[in-house]
Structure formats: C-alpha cells, structure tokens
C-alpha cells in the first residue's frame, strides 16, 4: 500500500510537469459533464417528470453514476489503456519486476484530471440531496454510499474485463464502450425507463442496475425493501470473474508471447 502511494506520487509529479494541460483537462471534464446535466435539465423543464421520477430524484441517480465512473476511471485508467501497454512492451517490463501484474497495471497510470468529472458529480449531489425530498435517515445515507461504492466496483470490473479481452483480440474492443461510457450516459436515468429487457440484462449480466436502480428505488421511497440498499455490494463480487478472466488472459499471453 505504501508502494501504491509512491507510484501515485510519481504520477502526480509527472502530470504536474504539464500543468496547463492538466487544468485544461480538468476544466474540460467539468464542462462536458455539464452538457449531460443540461440534457436532463431541459428534459425535465418540458415534462416535469419521467416515469414518475422528479428532477431532483433523477439527479441523485445521475450524480451517483457519474461519481462512481469518475473514481473508477481515475484509478483504473491503466486497464482502460491496456491494449497500448501490450503494444508498447510495457507489459513485458511489468513481468520483469517482482510485483503482481495487476498492481503494476493499476499504478501504470492514474488519471487525476478526472477530478473535473468528480467535482461535477459532487456539485450535482450537493444540490440534489437537500431538494429531492428524501428523508435522510442513516440507512438512506448508507444506501447512497453503497450505491457509489458498488458503482466503482462494477466499473472497475468492466475496465478489467476490457483489459482481459484485449489479450485475445484488439479488434472490436469498441463494443465494450457501450458498457462503460454508454452506461455512464444512459445510467443517468433509473434503468426501468428503458424497459424490462434492458433492466434484466443490466441486472443479471452486467450488474449496473444493482447499484443504480434497486437501491435508488429504496432511496426515493418507491420500495420499502430495505435490502435493496445492500444490492450494490454484489457489484463487488462482479470484480471476481473479471479478475479471473484477466489472470487467464495473462497466462495465455505468457504462452503465446503476443
């Protein structure tokens, strides 16, 4: 863990070599996230509610997803850029160091400029929490925290899965973006508005709804099932098969060398 922070320190130093670029990216991230915020805003300006959800309620969902995504992207950026790590030979170099490959991929890059997106999420959350009409008891606060943590875990799993697939093919990896960048965008609304099929898919296959929809139902009082608030923790389990697949891919890499 100490080593993790040393890696982080060197990455901060590296990124601070290009200060202007760093702050521009932060600002850019902050502003582009606004566009999706406005999309939500104008929609509600016209229709007042979507599927019975109010503006502030949807904002909670929006902010939780955005926050989880920005955290995952900041700290798991190495998996997102994994195909390049293979191509550039950096993976070979990692194999030459007496540390686990997963750890070294984690520490190969951290995208601190994602703080821009994170700030956007924090501001939105700051606005939505007092205005959404939720009675903030302890269990509801914990539910919201669980949503964010579960979200980080699911996105982390997806990034690792993405990296694992790139052991086998570098073509067609784009489709994975549907689940990462895609769900970040359409995950702003409670998953149920897209219909039952989509909801099922994102419950049982890629557990986005587990941190974004069910606990949200409990949060806004649409459901009284308190255990919905625990569902995001299943997101943590989602990492396990993704990690397993990555390890499998790595062992194959060692035997093919490509």
């Amino acid at each position, binding site marked *: 863990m100490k080593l993790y922070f040393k890696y982080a320190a060197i990455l901060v130093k590296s990124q601070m070599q290009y200060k202007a670029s760093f702050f521009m990216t932060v600002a850019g991230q902050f502003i582009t996230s606004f566009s999706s915020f406005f999309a939500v805003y104008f929609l509600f300006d016209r229709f007042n509610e979507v599927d019975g959800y109010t503006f502030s309620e949807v904002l909670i969902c929006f902010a939780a997803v955005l926050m989880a995504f920005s955290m995952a992207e900041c700290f798991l950026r190495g998996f997102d850029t994994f195909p390049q790590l293979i191509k550039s030979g950096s993976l070979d170099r990692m194999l030459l160091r007496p540390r686990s490959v997963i750890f070294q991929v984690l520490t190969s890059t951290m995208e601190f400029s994602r703080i821009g997106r994170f700030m956007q999420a924090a501001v939105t959350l700051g606005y939505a929490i007092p205005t959404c009409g939720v009675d903030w008891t302890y269990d509801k606060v914990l539910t919201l925290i669980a949503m964010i943590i579960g979200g980080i875990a699911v996105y982390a799993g997806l990034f690792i899965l993405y990296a694992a697939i790139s052991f086998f093919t570098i073509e067609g990896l784009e489709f994975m973006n549907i689940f990462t960048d895609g769900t970040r965008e359409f995950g702003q609304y409670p998953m149920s508005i897209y219909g039952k099929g989509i909801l099922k898919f994102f419950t049982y296959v890629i557990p986005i709804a587990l941190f974004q929809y069910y606990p949200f139902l409990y949060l806004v009082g649409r459901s009284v099932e308190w255990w919905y608030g625990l569902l995001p923790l299943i997101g943590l389990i989602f990492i396990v098969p993704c990690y397993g697949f990555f390890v499998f891919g790595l062992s194959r890499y*060692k035997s093919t060398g490509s």
Partner: protein
Amino acid sequence: MIELSNVNKTFKVAKRNAGFTEAVKALFMKKYEYIHALNDVTFTIRDGETVGYIGPNGAGKSSTIKIMSGIMAPDSGECVIDGRVPWKDRKAHVKEIGVVFGQRSQLWWDVPVIDSFELLKDVYRIPFDEYKKNLNRLTELLGIGEIMKMPTRQLSLGQRMRCEIAASLLHGPKILFLDEPTIGLDAVSKIAVRDFVKALNKENRTTVILTTHDMQDIEALTDRILLIGNGRILMDGTLDELKSRNTSKKTLVITYAGEKLPSVERVAVVKDIGGHAELVIDTGEISVAEAIAAISAAAEIKDITVQGTTVDEMVVSLYKEFKI
C-alpha cells in the same frame, strides 16, 4: 547457471495477401502460419560468463531472452536458471536478473531519473544500505551523478542508456541481459557502456548475456559466442574459435614498382592495377612470411599491409555457411 535443453517455441501468425478482397476474406477465414521461432535450443551458461548471442533479425534471439527472463513460456523443453524455472517462479526469478532493452525505456518519462531509481528501490524491496552502496557505485562508474537530476525525456540517448543500465542493476542482479545496448549510441557512449559492462563482469562476476548486431561489442565484451539462425543454435564457441575458422585467409595489399605483378605460386591475385595489387593467401598452404618472400623475389615491394578478416565479415560468412 543457466541451462536450456531442447527448448521449442512456435508462433501462430495470421497471414493474408495484400488487397481489399483479401482483407475481407481474412475477416471470415483467417489463415494461420506456424513459425518455429525456436527449435531444440540447448545450451548452458556458467556463472560469470559473458556470452554474445548473435544472429540475424528474426532468428529467435528475443524469444530466447523472453524465455530466460520469464516473460514467455516455451512450448516444450526445459529452462532452469539457478534452480528456478523463470516463468513459473517469476517474482523470485526477476529479483536476480536485470534486463536492458536498448529500444525501450524502463524509466518514468517525465520525472527526474533519481525518482525512478527511488521507486525501483521500493519495487524490488532493496534494503536502504545496499541501495545506497549500489547507487553510489553505479553513479561513479557510469558518470551519471549530474544527469540523474534531469527528467528522462530530456536526456540524450547515450545518457539515457547509461541510466537504463544503472536502473537494471540497482538490485544487484546475478545475471544481466543486454538486448542491443549500444544501438544508436555515439562512439564515446558505446565505449563507456562497454567498459562498464566489462568492469561489472570482472568485479561482481555478473553473468552477462548480450544480443547485438555490433561486432565490436562482441569483440570487446564476450568470451563466448552463441550463433542462432532460424531458431537453431548453429555455433557455440569462443571468439578465437570463430576467428580460427575464418582466419586461414589473409589479404595482402601491396604497392610495387612496375606495371604488372608476375604470378606467384599459391598466391591468388584479386586486383592488380598499375602498381597496386590485392592478393589473397590461405595460411594453411603458405605462411604470410613465405608469401612475402616469394612476392618480393618476383617484384620490388614498396609498401605492404596484411589484413585479417573482421568479425563482421566472419559473421557474414557464418550466416552464408549456414544459409540463414
């Protein structure tokens, strides 16, 4: 001690012809070709040896290095280094080796080199005293005291290479793999690198395995040569052995008085233009002294130089001999 026995490695490579229709075809039906990168590779390297590993591009040098350093596993055969199988016992193995790739950097690009060193100290869990000792010695021998404070991206290639070598030796490895360490370096840096490697091998008895296309590297550093071609070890011997294979032929370049050199027995004339001639003799048939005596008996010699074959030429003739 490095022992490889009957190591085989085959790569599957997708192949298609040029052209759009071929590209579309390949989308549905990929054709694969099998490339035998390594074929029954067997050799042993003792502790403290310096070995030059040579062969043309694509002969299998990198594959062998990858197997020995634990990045890749072979299809069959055994590789045991100091009692360990590199790719199975990766973490323990890599602590004992240092690897320098001439074409790739292992330093963090945007921070001063010393920061990279400090991080490597923690990555390898090098005890503080040992780190200080190694670092001091490396800085002194490689002359990187000042350049260490600069970010890697601002270093010249020669400076960077010296830092790369230092970085791969901080943990005091027993075996050092150098993959084309002098590629693209200027003469001064090349010599600095060679001198350093020589000293390292002498003082620490570090085993050095060097792949290179620069025959001066080989001549300056290695006492043993492994030649690989088409995935097979073709020759395993000392530089002297390699030389004696080829040095039976010598070239004599002479300047003489007169227009045409009379023919001399057992001396072949390659070129003869107006007082300058290039002759080749086989020392198995006639010694250099005998040849000079015979020529000076036939003509008045003004100047003479005797040339042996350079290592480069030897390697070319080896490549020809083995048809690689």
